[in-house]
């Protein structure tokens, strides 16, 4: 017990969960211990395990945080600690378990051993691959000074196999686009970005790729300022 430390945060729960991230939200502690709360640390623990891992290196100011790096299909519980200049609070009460899976899979939940059907082999004529089109309806669905969450739809033209995505960012006022996930394209039509500079304004865009190559970028988002305010621009065309 540190004298002057805040009380434990309250009501830790998940706002959104899928196989790529879980957005955790909480309420600020009833007492701040006499000095303002500087931020929060989120911890996660896989259900059935005893090891708690801290999710963020630096305290987050907003009472919500997207936790990434989860193993698809596994179940996690979360807790939050508050910090002020005197020190760290006790951890909050633990959240209900959250499954790191897409909503469609969750509704079909229950467990079952794997089953594999007969493999069907077909011969295909080699043709020049077709590079996929632009992703649509890119929007910023969450934005705080610590992270931005993007969401989009796959390109309209069907028939492309194994489409994946590259996310790009650009400091507003410049025309210098920089790829965020330089190594591995993402499979899902969404992405959580960290490590944005506070006070700077960014635009984002997304490109599709497949085995034939990388396509044209989507329409860029409106400029989003990284700051303490939840600055969520309206989706394009609205």
């Amino acid at each position, binding site marked *: 017990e540190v004298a002057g430390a805040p009380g434990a945060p309250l009501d830790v729960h998940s706002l959104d969960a899928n196989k790529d991230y879980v957005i955790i939200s909480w309420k600020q502690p009833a007492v701040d211990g006499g000095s303002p709360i500087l931020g929060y640390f989120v911890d996660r623990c896989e259900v059935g395990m005893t090891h708690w891992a801290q999710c963020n290196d630096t305290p987050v100011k907003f009472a919500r945080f997207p936790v990434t790096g989860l193993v698809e299909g596994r179940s996690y519980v979360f807790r939050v600690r508050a910090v002020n200049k005197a020190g760290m609070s006790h951890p909050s009460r633990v959240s209900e378990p959250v499954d790191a899976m897409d909503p469609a899979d969750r509704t079909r939940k229950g467990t079952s*051993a794997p*089953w594999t059907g007969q493999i069907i082999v077909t011969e295909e004529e*080699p043709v020049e691959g077709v590079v996929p089109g632009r992703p649509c309806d890119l929007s910023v669905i969450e934005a705080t000074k610590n992270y931005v969450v993007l969401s989009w739809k796959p390109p309209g033209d069907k028939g492309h196999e194994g489409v994946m995505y590259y996310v790009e960012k650009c400091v507003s006022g410049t025309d210098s686009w920089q790829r965020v996930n330089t190594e591995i394209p993402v499979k899902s039509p969404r992405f959580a970005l960290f490590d944005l500079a506070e006070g700077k304004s960014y635009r984002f865009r997304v490109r599709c790729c497949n085995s034939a190559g990388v396509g044209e970028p989507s329409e860029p988002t409106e400029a989003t300022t990284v700051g303490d305010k939840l600055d969520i621009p309206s989706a394009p065309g609205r």
Partner: protein
Amino acid sequence: SKTNAKKFTVTEGKHAKFRCYVTGKPKPEIVWKKDGENIVPGRRFLIFEDREGYYTLKVLYCKQQDTGLYICAASNALGNTLSAVQLSVKGPPVRFK
């Protein structure tokens, strides 16, 4: 085993697409193997989940040495299983002048 695996033949130089439907909760991890060795995705070997949810292996521009036993192995916390097929790559038709 090799003897009762279904056989497919493709022509040298063409692509061979293997599709396998897999169920299981939690979502199984899938490994494709050829003659017991894991297939590493690369320029000629594409591995992906197609739009209908089939696990797919595509071998591009098949060569004679792609002939062999192909396995789709699925595992999750509750168990593991596999399906197998035998692929043979036949040479292009000999042209007589």
